[in-house]
């Protein structure tokens, strides 16, 4: 297991290098000028030239790339061109809200979608099944920002149960933290609830037709044990894959949710970075996101062994 883990980590190095190269070149090919973002719309060409010169933006692209890669090898992700702050510090300020939002959405997803999917498969073709399927169509179809606005209108503006916007870090207390993160987490989870409940249902339907399920029932085991201990565990691999990749895919949904609920997370930071052509910031965020993808995929693979003892990694 350990050698497999190490081998996979080593394989990630070339992946990350090509991601870095691709992102670097893509950003340099995109029209736009960080100097203009610093100096503003009314700046003259002379001011812009002075800023470009100071930032080293007029150096050859190859030398800029070499310098960036070299610095990263020492753990230095560089400074934001716009704010002149270390990008890791900026990411550190923003990663907490995004992780909190993603984790909350994932908790909602797992807690709601797994029972729904199991129930739908158990009552295949019945009212519950149809309800879950209809719910998943709604979840897939409605954009996150619409769900967000509806939740705000109902639970924050009308009922006043929750604040309309904003974020409180966990350090300010669990109550305020939960109070602010519940609605955005729920809004972000809608799509994933639809996805995971459908996947759970499909996977469960397949497993429920297996002989060992019939055997379990013939032995007189209760339906709850049959469903959750025997069937769900064997149906888990595709579900784990979807939950894991869904967690990584949340990046796009996070941007919209953070905007609607005014959460100062990574999604808004990356949009800000793109609009201002803040190269080091965008590069660092994309590289870290790519790293997270690699890591999550590895963890998903490792988790297969936990749900299915037949799987062994060497």
């Amino acid at each position, binding site marked *: 297991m350990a050698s497999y883990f190490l081998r996979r980590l080593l394989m990630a190095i070339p992946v990350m290098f090509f991601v870095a190269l691709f992102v670097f070149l893509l950003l340099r090919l*995109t*029209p*736009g*000028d960080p100097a*203009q*973002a*610093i*100096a*503003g*719309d*009314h*700046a*003259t*060409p*002379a*001011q*812009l*030239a*002075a*800023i*470009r*010169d*100071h*930032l080293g933006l007029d150096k050859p692209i190859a030398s800029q790339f070499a310098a960036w890669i070299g610095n990263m090898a020492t753990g230095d992700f560089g400074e*934001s061109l*716009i*704010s*002149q*702050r270390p990008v890791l510090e*900026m990411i550190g*300020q*923003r990663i907490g809200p995004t992780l909190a939002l993603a984790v909350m959405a994932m908790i909602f997803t797992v807690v709601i979608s797994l029972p729904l999917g199991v129930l739908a498969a158990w009552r295949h073709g019945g009212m519950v099944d149809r309800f879950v399927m209809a719910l998943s169509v709604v979840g897939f179809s409605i954009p996150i920002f619409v769900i967000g*606005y509806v939740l705000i209108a109902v639970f*924050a*503006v009308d009922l006043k*149960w*929750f*604040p*309309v*916007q*904003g974020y409180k870090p966990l350090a300010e*207390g*669990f*109550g*305020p933290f*939960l*109070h*602010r993160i*519940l609605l955005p987490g729920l809004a972000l989870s809608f799509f994933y609830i639809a996805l995971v409940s459908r996947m759970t249902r499909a996977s469960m339907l397949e497993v429920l037709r297996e002989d060992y399920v019939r055997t379990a029932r013939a032995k007189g085991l209760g339906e709850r044990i049959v469903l959750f201990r025997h069937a769900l565990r064997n149906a888990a691999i595709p579900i784990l894959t979807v939950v894991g990749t869904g967690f990584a895919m949340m990046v796009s949904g996070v941007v919209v949710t953070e*905007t*609607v*609920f*005014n959460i*100062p997370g990574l999604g*808004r*930071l990356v*949009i*800000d970075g793109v*609009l*201002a052509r803040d190269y080091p910031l965008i590069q660092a965020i994309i590289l870290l996101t790519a790293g997270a993808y690699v890591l999550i995929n590895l963890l998903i693979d490792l988790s297969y062994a936990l749900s299915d003892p037949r799987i062994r990694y060497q």
Partner: protein
Amino acid sequence: MTFRFKTFGAAALIAGSVHAMPAFAETALNVVMQAPLRTLDPILSTAQIVRTHGFMVFDTLLGMDAKYNPQPQMAEYSVSADKMTYTFALRDGLTWHDGTPVKAEDCVASIKRWAANDGAGRTMMASVASIEATSDKVLVIKLAKPFGQVLELLAKPSPVPPFMMPKRLAETPAGKQVTEMVGSGPFRFVAEQYRPGDQAVYVKNKDYKPRSEPMSWTAGGKVVNVDKVVWKAMPDMQTSINALQSGDVDLIEQVTIDLLPLLKANDEIKTGAINALGSQVTGRFNHRLPPFDNPKARQAAMYALDQDQLMQTAIGDSQYYKLCASVYGCDVPLASDAGSEYLKGSAKERMAKAKELLKASGYDGAPVLMMQPTDLTILSTQPIVAAERLREAGFKVDVAAMDWATLQSRKNSTQPVAQGGWNMLFTYWGVAGIWNPTVHALLDGSGSETAWSGWPRNARVEELRAAYLTAPTLDEQKKLAREIQQIAFDEGFYFNAGEFQSVAAWRAKLKNLQPGPLTLFWGVSK
């Protein structure tokens, strides 16, 4: 299940009530600004948000009052009889936020840095023989040749005001940002709580000694009545409005006009203009490329375009925009109706004139590339409407949709369109940044590489702008400004597409919001 639901509901309510309790009794003003604060150096940046930030943290030697007159702020001043020597004496009790006293040598270095970065400042420096600190409290500007705008420029609130900062910061090399926010202004910047693009926090500078005169724009006593001001960036206007209505924020600096009805129905919210000056939308021609290298083609375009149509499209409600010919803003001392013949007449008459002029220009049907910023609400519609009018006049127009950052970069290109150039763009300027020929970048007739994009060339305008700098009286300045404006129309420097007013919204409990050329946070109480 019922028990669990109740438990959850109780937890949420407790969480809510805990959250609602203030941690300590301080007066904090929570504000949604018109743009996120991403950079901090108010000398290097011309962005409005950075300028407003500058006025929080830094102070200026002189302030500008509501009658457009320079007034003492950090310093009293005297002018020699021949108007060639300006002496500034720093008032007592001025200290930087790091506790050190403000010295004249700090101000000398600050003026030099400002002048190196500001177009009008550079113009002033061309007439300056020396700037020296003669003691810790006195600095003297000696002119090499007459220049009548020294006080006006040192008091100007836009686009780059001459903010004073410690010498060690003012000596930062050209092109490098100052990131340490040590000023002597009425608020201190809380660096630890700054999140670029999201949040900026300012606390009252308890060591600040306001002047005794009444507040008037950036002049007079800057009396701070709140403990803290928190700027929050909210990219979604609906979220901002929800936050204002719920009391999470106290003020939205700039509300989208079409959402104002949502707020007007709420008795706890007030709306209005706190920025006394509006912004002028400008359609800029690229004078270096055909067809707008031909004055007749530019005139044809100006006759084809229509101020009211463009304002209707962008703003909608006529109570929030003004139509006037003045290139300096509709309500400033230099405003005049010179060139208004280009804006008068029915749409049909104007279009007929446009067609006639375009024919006379010998236009060969080469496409006009109009840049359209799709991510900037206030400017995304004008190019579409303008393109239709130009097409009706006989131009062939391609509208190129792009984001604002791409447009800003592309507008600096002097290359042909096929190689990344452009023919026409729309932007807007705060009136405080265009209210006279010295600060108005679009009236630069030098055609030089250092001028703002568009590069019109007109020797007479340059002569008049130079004469303006030494004009002794307001009447003389008005005469010169009027002639410059007429030439700007005749030569099609740009199309003045009208002036709109920013509308703010705030909780009714806020008192004494100060009108000014930008949003001011002194005077206001909660």
